[in-house]
């Protein structure tokens, strides 16, 4: 009950014309970047970060949260109409969604994606409101050794679960951790990795790294692959659903939400896993009913489930971010950086110190989610037109904003050189297939982990056993070991079998 009261208070604060306007701007901007492949919410938030310094922290967070939800939503439009997922979480939606669109059911596919996103987003956000205070209350009691272990766990999980290659994942992670090391050591004031320059003594701003890696890297990558065969877009009218579509979508929406939320809340690489699981579940359930022949040719369940899972996991991300100060997706990382830049310390104490911010943010998320549905259902044909924007003009605009933003942080020309360097890094990781999430997570979590590590070691006067002084920490270390060993062991056991079947077939 107390949670509902607090949330009602949040709504009262959020229903000001100004915040409603910012929420609307956020969701529109988010859908815009979500629709365009290659540009995601992480890049949009990174680009807007310097521009929003003039705003109040609540206003900025409302815009960013709107961009995040909008980006998740916009990705589905591109998946369905083009078979080119706008972002990785929409890959599963594309499988059935594009088939539906090709069979002339684009309107229904878009509608089930939109309404499913709305339902999952709303339920997910309410769950965040109920879980976060409880988790934060527990997290306050967690000491430095356990916190360090939890951070380590999230790094290991994100790096090893996500993507095909663990080596590439860890390469990205260590690059990020190295970037995070640059600057003055906080307890001994020793300069690290500064190469004798004064400009690097304060460390590298997260804005510079994020804008360089996301915006410049993507722009360089696109410039290197500028000319491409245009793809055929499927024309679409007003999204709508028949009674049968409603009946078939309702179950997948709820199951997708149930799958998506917990996966979003743990650091397991965002929405890829739950969307995949949701797709497989719906397919199996359809098979049990004896109605799976439509799967593979455009089954509405295959759009409704993954799309709901996608948005529920997007909401789930806020639980560790608000309760622990632990980001689990690229966008969450930038949100964390944004909070830090306002002088707010994200972590277990956030709920107590900034209750207005948290509850207004959660209320705004619910409002933004409703706005997405109201604004975007009628606008679907318009969003599809965005895909006709010529890339040179689009990326010229992005580069302009990137440079402006990076310069405005400190008005220091040195930052522009750094920006260019990280743009090169961004290009290189795309070229060599290194995932970007471990890198950016390493940049932001590295320094935080170091603080906790130092704290733990100071408490035990430098004795390594201090890291294992709490039982929670030991449990987490066991989890890390399991996460690292089990996939390898399974691979060892499974490989001979696979070879056998290959020979047999």
């Amino acid at each position, binding site marked *: 009950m107390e949670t509902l009261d607090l949330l009602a208070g949040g709504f009262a604060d959020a229903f000001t014309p100004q915040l409603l306007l910012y929420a609307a701007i956020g969701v529109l901007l988010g859908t815009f970047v979500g629709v*365009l492949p290659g540009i995601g919410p992480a890049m949009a938030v990174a680009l807007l970060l310097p521009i929003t310094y003039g705003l109040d922290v609540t206003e900025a967070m409302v815009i960013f949260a709107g961009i995040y939800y909008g980006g998740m939503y916009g990705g589905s439009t591109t998946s369905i109409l083009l078979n080119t997922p706008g972002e990785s979480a929409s890959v599963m939606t594309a499988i059935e969604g594009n088939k539906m669109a090709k069979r002339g059911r684009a309107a229904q596919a878009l509608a089930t994606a939109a309404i499913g996103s709305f339902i999952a987003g709303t339920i997910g956000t309410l769950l965040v409101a109920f879980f976060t205070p409880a988790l934060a209350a527990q997290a306050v009691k967690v000491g430095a050794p356990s916190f360090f272990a939890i951070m380590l766990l999230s790094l290991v999980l994100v790096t090893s679960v996500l993507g095909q290659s663990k080596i590439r994942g860890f390469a990205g992670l260590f690059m990020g951790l190295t970037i995070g090391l640059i600057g003055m050591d906080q307890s001994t004031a020793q300069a690290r990795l500064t190469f004798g320059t004064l400009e690097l003594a304060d460390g590298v701003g997260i804005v510079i790294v994020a804008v360089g890696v996301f915006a410049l890297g993507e722009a360089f990558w696109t410039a290197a692959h*500028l*000319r491409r*065969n*245009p793809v055929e877009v499927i024309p679409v009218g007003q999204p709508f659903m028949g009674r049968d579509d409603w009946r078939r979508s309702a179950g997948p929406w709820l199951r997708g939400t149930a799958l998506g939320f917990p996966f979003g809340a743990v650091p397991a690489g965002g929405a890829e896993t739950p969307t995949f699981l949701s797709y497989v579940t719906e397919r199996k359930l359809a098979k049990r009913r004896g109605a799976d022949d439509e799967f593979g040719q455009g089954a509405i369940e295959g759009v409704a489930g993954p799309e709901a899972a996608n948005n529920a996991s997007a909401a789930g991300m806020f639980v560790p971010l608000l309760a622990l100060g632990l980001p689990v997706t690229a966008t969450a990382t930038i949100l964390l950086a944004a909070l830090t830049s306002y002088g707010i310390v994200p972590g277990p104490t956030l709920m107590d110190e900034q209750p207005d911010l948290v509850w207004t943010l959660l209320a705004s998320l619910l409002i933004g989610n409703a706005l997405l549905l109201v604004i975007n259902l009628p606008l679907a044909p318009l969003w*599809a037109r965005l*895909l*006709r*924007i*010529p890339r040179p003009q689009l990326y010229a605009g992005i580069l302009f904003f990137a440079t402006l933003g990076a310069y405005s942080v400190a008005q220091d020309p040195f930052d522009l050189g750094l920006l260019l360097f990280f743009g090169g890094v961004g290009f290189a990781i795309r070229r060599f297939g290194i995932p970007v999430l471990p890198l950016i997570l390493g940049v932001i979590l590295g320094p935080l982990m170091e603080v906790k590590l130092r704290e733990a070691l100071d408490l035990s006067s430098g004795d390594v056993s201090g890291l294992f002084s709490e039982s929670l920490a030991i449990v987490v270390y066991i989890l890390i070991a399991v996460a690292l060993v089990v996939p390898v062991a399974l691979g060892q056991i499974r490989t001979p079998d696979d070879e056998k079947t290959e020979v047999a077939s």
Partner: protein
Amino acid sequence: MTVLVGYIPDQYGEAALAAAIEEAERRGTDLLVLNASRGESLVDTRYLGESQLGDLERRLADSGVAHEVRQSVGTDAADQLVAAAQAADDPVIVIGMRHRSPVGKLIMGSTAQRILLDAPCWVIAVKP
């Protein structure tokens, strides 16, 4: 001799195509249909997709004129037409013209204008 036509799937392209088929019949020559995209945007409605290509082929076959359809990505439509005209033996170009405001021309440039100025041969400009 060859009749070259720049084709895009809209009313201007249709007018040009109809005129080009007529011209090829009148001259008793073959017809080269050109379609280009600069390949800069993800979706280019002026670039023919698979289904549209099939339709075009069928219509050309029905007209009974000896024909060829050529698509290119990465070049400008004007460059493509002019280059094809330079390579062909005694060509004539057929294009569709649209109304453009002075401001529109200033910002986007005019494909028709560049073809008219650069073409090494006759250009027949058709209005729908």
